[in-house]
């Protein structure tokens, strides 16, 4: 029977499938971090259970760690206890951990791919909803809660009901200045934050195939913002070239064997998706959000919509609330919106290509005098690479802050937060109320728009410079 890519990966991990119960899926890689794991380890100890496969488990410190003075003890005692708890748990159960200060430390979804641990056809889970990032390699990757973290630690499996599949076909060629971030923001605006509920998304089409691995990761990363737990892209030559010679990529004959399997990982031409969506890449322009959920986005050239523009009563009231929270008026051009802070980083857009693209725009110029720009590399390796290329100097000379790796202002769990009323242009993934700090207001943007906005002080694209 013809199968979609997601169905192939699912079926290849079935430990058990019986009617009247969920499928039991084997998990190839379990990533953990300090925030969603402590209660899971407690659960193991209470039940006197061990970790079944420490050799398929990897931990990093990312969510609540500081991005300044990382050589000193963490100042906030509650954060420090959480990080110390992870360190103790990893030591007790023999789990590999990349701590603050370690060259492999960083955001878990940046670290997995750069080590070559993320490979096509794998099942990958983490107690973090942006685990969907790893889908860019043709892996089935999704976020889980702490009860499920405990389940995977104890059994290396998860009981799951088979989701439906949705094809998102993006055909055509992106215009200069338009990025994969704009593609995914446009998709979410089109299908809504609940559009992907119950589905695994597969991004397909010529515009997707033309993207680099890092750009693909940006798209898959935000599948969750469209409501889908997972989103994936069939592996191809771009994927294989990215993986070749990475530390944990297969070597020698194993590489050939893996390649043979990976090459089969695509949806059969006659496979049936439960739903199909089409997006025209040629028509896309830089996209930004105006509201308080990621579906409330429009082209940067547009004006803020009026609640009356929506038909669904829930959307009307959501728009009314969003305009009040964001302190914005319908009809205002997006480009007139004045920004206080620009955040460049996160598991969405904190990779080397993102930093290069932004640095290219900032190069030799100055960040607007009333703008704070924070550049937070996604991992310590990304930071080192950027420094080797001199990108840190370009940012610093422009007046931006150059920080150490972590989730940082994406979720405002560490001290990197917006003040109440402060407005950001952020390359992260969520514009929820207070996400980046209580009372803070977030506009989601691409790294290119972030850089141009930092220079002009208002939401801008590189073409405006």
């Amino acid at each position: 029977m013809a199968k979609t890519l997601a169905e192939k990966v699912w079926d290849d991990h079935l430990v058990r499938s019986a009617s009247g119960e969920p499928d039991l899926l084997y998990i190839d890689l379990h990533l953990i971090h300090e925030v969603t794991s402590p209660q899971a380890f407690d659960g193991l100890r209470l039940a006197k259970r061990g970790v079944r496969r420490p050799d398929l488990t990897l931990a990093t410190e990312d969510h609540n760690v500081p991005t300044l003075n990382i050589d000193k003890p963490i100042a906030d005692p509650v954060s420090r206890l959480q990080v110390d708890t992870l360190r103790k748990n990893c030591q007790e159960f023999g789990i590999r951990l990349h701590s603050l200060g370690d060259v492999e430390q960083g955001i878990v979804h940046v670290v997995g791919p750069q080590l070559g641990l993320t490979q096509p056809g794998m099942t990958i889970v983490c107690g973090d909803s942006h685990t969907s990032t790893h889908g860019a390699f043709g892996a089935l990757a999704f976020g889980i809660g702490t009860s499920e973290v405990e389940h995977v630690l104890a059994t290396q499996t998860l009981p799951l009901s088979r989701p439906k599949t949705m094809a998102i076909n993006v055909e055509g060629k992106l215009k200069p200045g338009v990025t994969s971030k704009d593609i995914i923001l446009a998709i979410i605006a089109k299908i809504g934050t609940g559009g992907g509920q119950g589905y695994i998304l597969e991004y397909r089409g010529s515009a997707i195939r033309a993207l680099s691995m890092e750009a693909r990761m940006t798209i898959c990363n935000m599948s969750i913002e469209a409501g889908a737990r997972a989103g994936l892209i069939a592996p191809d030559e771009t994927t294989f070239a990215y993986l070749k010679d990475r530390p944990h990529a297969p070597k020698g004959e194993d590489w050939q064997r893996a390649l043979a399997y990976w090459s089969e990982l695509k949806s059969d031409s006659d496979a049936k998706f439960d739903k199909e969506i089409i997006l025209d890449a040629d028509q896309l322009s830089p996209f930004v959000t105006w509201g308080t959920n990621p579906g409330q986005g429009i082209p940067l050239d547009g004006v803020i919509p009026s609640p009356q523009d929506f038909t669904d009563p829930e959307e009307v009231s959501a728009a009314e609330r969003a305009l009040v929270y964001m302190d914005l008026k319908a009809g205002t051009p997006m480009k007139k919106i004045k920004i206080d802070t620009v955040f460049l980083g996160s598991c969405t857009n904190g990779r080397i290509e993102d930093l290069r693209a932004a640095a290219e725009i900032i190069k030799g110029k100055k960040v607007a005098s009333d703008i704070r720009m924070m550049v937070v590399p996604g991992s310590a390796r990304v930071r080192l690479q950027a420094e080797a290329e001199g990108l840190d100097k370009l940012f610093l000379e422009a007046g931006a802050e150059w920080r150490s790796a972590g989730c940082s202002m994406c979720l405002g769990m560490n001290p990197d937060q917006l003040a109440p009323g402060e407005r950001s242009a952020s390359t992260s993934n969520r514009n929820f109320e207070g996400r980046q700090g209580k009372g803070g207001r977030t506009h989601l943007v691409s790294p290119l728009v972030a850089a141009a906005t930092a220079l002009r002080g208002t939401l801008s694209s590189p073409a405006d410079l």
Partner: protein
Amino acid sequence: MEKFISHTGSALPLRRSNVDTDQIIPAVYLKRVTRSGFEDGLFAAWRSDPEFVLNKAEYSKASILVAGADFGTGSSREHAVWALQNYGFKVVISSRFADIFRGNSLKAGLLTVILGQSDVEALWSAIEAEPSLEIKVDLETRLVSYKNQAISFDLDDYTRWRLMEGLDDIGLTLRKIDEVENFEEKRAKYKPKTLPVLS
């Protein structure tokens, strides 16, 4: 896990859609390493407004939350479920739940019930007219009832059985561990391992 068979209580009408997990509990409250004590963070930003529905005396005993569509979107933090439970909620009713939140709630024993949006609207009106209105949510019959209304809801048989028996998912899987071992023997050898550390 405690068995869930049926729950009767009064409800809190939360007339908001797209209530994301950052609203249910902001990230700054996630630093605790326990499963308890998260009630302080529940709807923390909204609670600073005295007019917010959770602050109203007439709903102080509510144990059922009736929310707008797309409840629990965003982060995978199970702390959102714990915050609701720690505060005293046993059931959340909405027309749509985000997938991860829904999975977390049913693992942790917080019953999430999906009703049609018109049923949710009718419930809101009924609760607002009579805040002490008794609502019964019954897993045995899969019915939400109040006054002379009885609305059926779907929940797959397996999850219903697990909740009614109060069974731990891990224990259930460990009964089949020989099947996991069989699977592991057949796994491709080129699949990556995190240990030993390679560079």
